């Protein structure tokens, strides 16, 4: 059974009278322990797709299976539980709570878990997570006292606190310089290799995408090249429109 399978997902927004199609039938599968880069130009619908994958948003049509369960018609509460248990999110702009210590930021998702952990255990687990991303010595620091790379690592620790099988990252290095980007990407690779966390990261940066083991390319709401399995592609530049157009919509 695949970890994730989407079939013919579409998404369109209604802006007044006109309907704007963003995703036009996207299908692919994700196996356990993959490290995937979702690539595409700005405005191509990467974030929209990722939000649907992360159950933050619902598709207009199509099927979405997680571990054999169809979740695209889940209620808001069911999706909340799913997000809490199965997904971790890392955002481009970190989204840490201001004036709140790194430790408390990391422990925050535990507030919404069903197996109410005691405060002490929650903090212990958060501390371990911060250690894991190399910030064991910054636990008391507030976001304003941390560098961008450190903030993003705090965000990663927060995303992982509930030990989710899947981590979604939307342009995780978009606000970082190349050196701190490398730090973050290294953490991702480690997590993927050592802990077996499935990671789907959205990026428009080929350099970032090169750290993934599989690249799914999206353009104008359709997948143009989704079959780069297990290949650290040497294609340095953005996708070549002419070459990849033939493979449109390819699931593996």
């Amino acid at each position, binding site marked *: 059974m695949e970890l994730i399978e989407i079939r013919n997902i579409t998404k369109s927004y209604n802006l007044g009278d006109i309907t704007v199609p963003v995703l036009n039938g996207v299908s692919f599968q994700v196996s356990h322990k993959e490290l995937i880069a979702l690539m595409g130009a700005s405005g191509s619908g990467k974030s929209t797709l990722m939000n649907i994958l*992360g159950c933050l948003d619902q598709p207009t049509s199509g099927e979405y299976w997680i571990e054999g369960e169809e979740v695209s018609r889940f209620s808001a*509460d069911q999706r909340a*539980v799913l*997000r809490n248990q199965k997904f971790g999110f890392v955002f481009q702009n970190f989204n840490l709570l201001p004036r709140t210590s790194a430790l408390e930021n990391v422990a*925050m*998702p535990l507030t*919404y878990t069903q197996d*109410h952990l005691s*405060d002490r255990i929650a903090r212990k687990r958060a501390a371990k997570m911060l250690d894991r991303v190399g910030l064991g010595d910054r636990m008391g620091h507030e976001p304003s006292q941390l560098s961008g790379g450190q903030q993003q690592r705090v965000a990663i620790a927060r995303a992982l606190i509930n030990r989710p099988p899947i981590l979604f990252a939307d342009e995780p290095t978009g606000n970082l310089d190349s050196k701190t980007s490398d730090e973050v990407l290294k953490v991702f690779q480690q997590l993927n290799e050592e802990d077996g966390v499935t990671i789907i990261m959205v990026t428009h940066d080929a350099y970032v995408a090169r750290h993934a083991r599989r690249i799914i390319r999206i353009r104008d709401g359709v997948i143009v090249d989704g079959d780069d399995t297990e290949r650290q592609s040497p294609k340095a530049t953005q996708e070549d429109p002419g070459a990849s157009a033939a493979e449109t919509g390819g699931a593996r």
Partner: protein
Amino acid sequence: MKAYRSILTALKALRRNPMRAMLTTLGIVIGIAAVIAMMEIGAGSAEAIKKSISSMGANVILILPGTASSGGVSFGAGSVMTLTPKDCEAIARECPAIRNVAPIVRARAQIVYGGRNWVPSSISGTTPAFLAIRDWTDLAEGESFSERDILNANKVCLLGQTIVRELFQGESPIGKAIRLKNISFKVIGVLSRKGANMVGMDQDDTILAPWTTIKYRVSGSTLGNVNQSSTSSSTSGTTVNTLSNLYPGDESGLYPATSDVQQADNPMPVRFETVDQILAAANSTEEIPMAINQITELLHERHHIRPGEDDDFNVRDMTEMSKTISDTTALMTKLLLCVAMISLVVGGVGIMNIMLVSVTERTREIGLRMAVGARGRDILRQFLVESVALCLVGGALGILLGHGGSMLVRMLLHWPIKTSPMAIAAAVLVSGSVGITFGFYPAWKASRLNPIEALRYE
């Protein structure tokens, strides 16, 4: 999401902006402080009134001489007719709704014991029934005078605590002789402590003696300058002066026989012996109106007042008076409570305003919390707990402030106050409900946010 965790989360959120939290809750603080202070002061004065009412004695009815419309205008024919000891006896005999009745003759004089002297605020001549009416039969020391003392106009007296303190300073006054207008009175009893009455007069600054003694031995001889209440409440001064010439202060036992004869000789209502007041007690509170009617009827008959004529006496009901006072206090408390409630509503609107601002400001945070698994109801609860916590902190501060305020009032103005656990419980409840009422809409708004839109919010 456990309750204590929501409270913790809410407190953390409030701690991020403590100054704003304080200012937001100020309206609640002031509202609750006002409620608490009003309740404590109101309850205190109600208690004080209740206490002074009970110190007056239960179901007391006061009969005063003079015209009903005693504004000075109709101070004519009717006011010649004053109350007599005979009236008092008739009331005791013929008014079934009356439990006890006692005449009162007042005097004002200096009393001397040894090297010390004192002018009591009240010197009353009366009968032992007076003590029964005033619920004062339990003497601190000694015993009361008897009917026999009244018949013989014996020179005995009971002292109030204040006088004992002022004149005797620790030693027992029983059996000692005090001098009152150069007449020696033997102290046979000491009254128990009563404290201040409704208008703040010290009820322990008093001497009680047989009314005949005061009438014929004290007021009689010195009426012109000391018996103020007698001269002011009636125009019987000349009559009494004549009387005191007829019956010099030394002679005793004159009153019963002569009075009868004189009454027989004088069908005209000229009162030779007058008393300043008659104090009566009804059998029960319910019978007070009945008792007043009985007294009025009886005195109409005895004073030959025809229908339509003005009364030459006043019947006053103490409970009526105290009810008016406590009604006024209750009304004041209610009005002030209204003001306090309005300030609470204003405070609540302030809370709502700030919570709405807070929800808007923290839209991204809400989106993030939803992304990591918060359900709509978790968000609703979090913001609700936040506004309730804000209000409860405000309420707690308000309770302290209000209590402090009423303590200050007690210290500076000497008003009676009474801490009321009910008021504190109500304050907590009210501030909590204000938090829920005015926090609900912002919290509901927050819970309805779409996670994506919230996360994208700039």
